[in-house]
């Protein structure tokens, strides 16, 4: 017995829609097994993971806080992945955006007026884009593998932020804690409904970005260019599209959005710079992008699912003492299942007997 793939004449519309859902169900099943191995009641665990965080208004706000960076980063990554550019350094671009945006409130704390926040957001976007431009330039100019360079820059960004908050940017009045001064009131990204919860404008940015990129990918020539160069670089060249230019565009968009996510996170949810400002959003966003099938609207939904897994991880830890590390294992499993299920879009899977003989073929075709 072995698995055999039979190519479908056309991609299956049915499975394009439901393959992420199948993956979610399979992940929950695998998760239930994992939880029982850990000695927890799997139904309890799944309840705390996926239902409990949805029951109260404040935790719905927390969901939006967590979903915002994931969606912002993932819609940018979708442009990269669709055009066959593998930017996996979004975590670094997120940090670069947070640092660049943080310059105003940390280094110029006396500059306080209504201009500060828009400038910070702009600088955050620019910082992330500039940081992403490094691997993009190296790929376009020197043919350097962008996967490795963008990832290496994550470690560099983390170390640089660590140096800043422990060294030159440390809060002079902060008892030597490794953190910058608190951002002043003009530098804080406002909450949407302060009386109800912590959700801030980041989620609005995320949804607007998703809508804009959905339009660009679907309805514009640039979107077409992205797809063609991703699926067939040769065809793209014949059409007169420039691959090196696309490398730069894809990285600048995704880096910029990751940077915007970074500054939104520190100006919205955290309020200062610390040695660690992200629980791996830049990497989790890769899962979000694939779960959303690289479609910006799908990514909005996927962003909330993964945000739920972060919150659920916390809820399960508090209520039934499940390690919060389980959430990361869970997220990893999800990506595996998503990729595996996507095979169903292009292939039918069947169990074949031994070598396909004429009789076996006939029997299977009945």
């Amino acid at each position, binding site marked *: 017995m072995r698995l055999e793939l039979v190519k479908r004449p056309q991609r299956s519309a049915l499975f394009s829609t439901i393959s992420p859902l199948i993956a979610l169900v399979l992940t929950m099943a695998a998760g239930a097994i994992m939880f029982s191995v850990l000695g927890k009641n799997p139904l309890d665990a799944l309840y705390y993971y996926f239902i409990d965080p949805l029951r109260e208004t404040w935790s719905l706000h927390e969901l939006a806080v967590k979903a915002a960076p994931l969606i912002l980063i993932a819609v940018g990554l979708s442009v990269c992945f669709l055009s066959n550019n593998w930017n996996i350094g979004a975590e670094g671009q997120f940090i670069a955006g947070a640092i660049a945006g943080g310059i105003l409130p940390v280094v110029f704390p006396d500059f306080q007026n209504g201009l500060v926040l828009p400038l910070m957001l702009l600088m955050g976007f620019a910082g992330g884009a500039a940081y992403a431009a490094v691997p993009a330039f*190296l790929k376009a100019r020197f043919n*350097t593998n962008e996967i490795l360079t963008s990832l*290496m820059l994550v470690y560099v960004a983390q170390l640089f932020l660590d140096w800043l908050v422990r060294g030159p940017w440390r809060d002079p009045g902060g008892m030597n804690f490794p953190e910058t001064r608190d951002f002043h009131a003009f530098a804080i990204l406002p909450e949407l409904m302060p009386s109800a919860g912590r959700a801030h404008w980041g989620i609005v940015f995320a949804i607007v970005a998703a809508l804009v990129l959905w339009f660009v990918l679907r309805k514009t020539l640039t979107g077409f260019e992205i797809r063609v160069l991703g699926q067939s670089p040769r065809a793209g060249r014949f059409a007169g599209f420039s691959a090196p230019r696309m490398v730069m565009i894809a990285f600048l968009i995704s880096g910029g959005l990751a940077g915007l996510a970074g500054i939104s996170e520190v100006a919205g949810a955290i309020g200062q710079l610390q040695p660690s400002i992200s629980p791996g959003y830049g990497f989790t966003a890769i899962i979000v992008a694939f779960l959303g099938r690289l479609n910006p609207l799908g990514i909005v939904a996927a962003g909330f699912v993964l945000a739920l897994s972060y919150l659920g991880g916390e809820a399960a830890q508090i209520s039934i003492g499940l390690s919060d590390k389980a959430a990361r294992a869970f997220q990893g499993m999800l990506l595996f299942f998503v990729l595996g299920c996507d095979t169903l879009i292009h292939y039918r899977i069947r169990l074949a007997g031994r070598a396909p003989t004429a009789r076996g073929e006939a029997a299977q075709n009945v």
Partner: protein
Amino acid sequence: MFESVLITIATAATPLLIAAIGELVVERSGVLNLGVEGMMVMGAVTGFGVAVTTGSPWLGVFAAILVGAAFSLLFGFLTLTLVTNQVATGLALTLLGLGVSGMIGEAFIGMPGQKLGIIAIPFLSDLPYVGRFLFAQDPLFYVSLLLVAGVAYFLFYTRAGLTLRSVGDNHDSAHALGIKVIAVRYAAVAFGGACAGLAGAYLSLVYTPQWIENMTAGRGWIALALVVFASWRPWRVLAGAYLFGAVSIGQLHAQVIGVSIPSQFLSALPYLATIIVLVLISRNRRLTMVNTPACLGRPFVPAR
């Protein structure tokens, strides 16, 4: 002094070397497994856990090899049987490995570990300057050198090695010749996983005998870069690994001497060095194209 520096370089280089030589075989068969970091960290946590619970570091080493190989077969099943995208699946393997190892390892945080002892070869280890460096090392150091020699011999002097390279360079022709492309690739992927697991065990049983979450700290990725740096040639991996070992050890010695550069900048050196080296190597487009296995990363579905 000179010799002790050499020895510390060897401890930094050995895990990179073991992981990279495994990935080299995988890539020579035409498969790009970006999950090295994940397999390595799984090896590290398994090696540590088994060594601590059984009291035998050797059992830890073997368990790490098995888990690394088993973990890589997950990747193999998806990319080879279900023909998923290799880049995305490799990333998934890394994310899964980091998550699962963090969960398993939570019980081991802060526990004292087991350490593999040093094997000194009589007489030879007394040689001046290089005796201790070459002949009084931990057992996995010798294993790493044997692996390089073995892989170099296998790839270029055996028929099976030729078969593996042919699968990596043109899987359609290999298939037409009756070679079982998928089977060869499964074997290569499992070998790469075993090596990554072993490299992980080196970290948690020799380098720093304790468990720290994410203790691989990007070494799996550096190993991937080493394969490119070595243009898919085993002996060049050896040179590259020691070069990187020297860079990452250089920062420690610089701190001891008291160079007044912030430690974070020194810690960033290996990562920056990786980028610079990659740029220098890939600048020459034609050279890269000659050396890269032609089917690297390309999916194979047998035409029936």
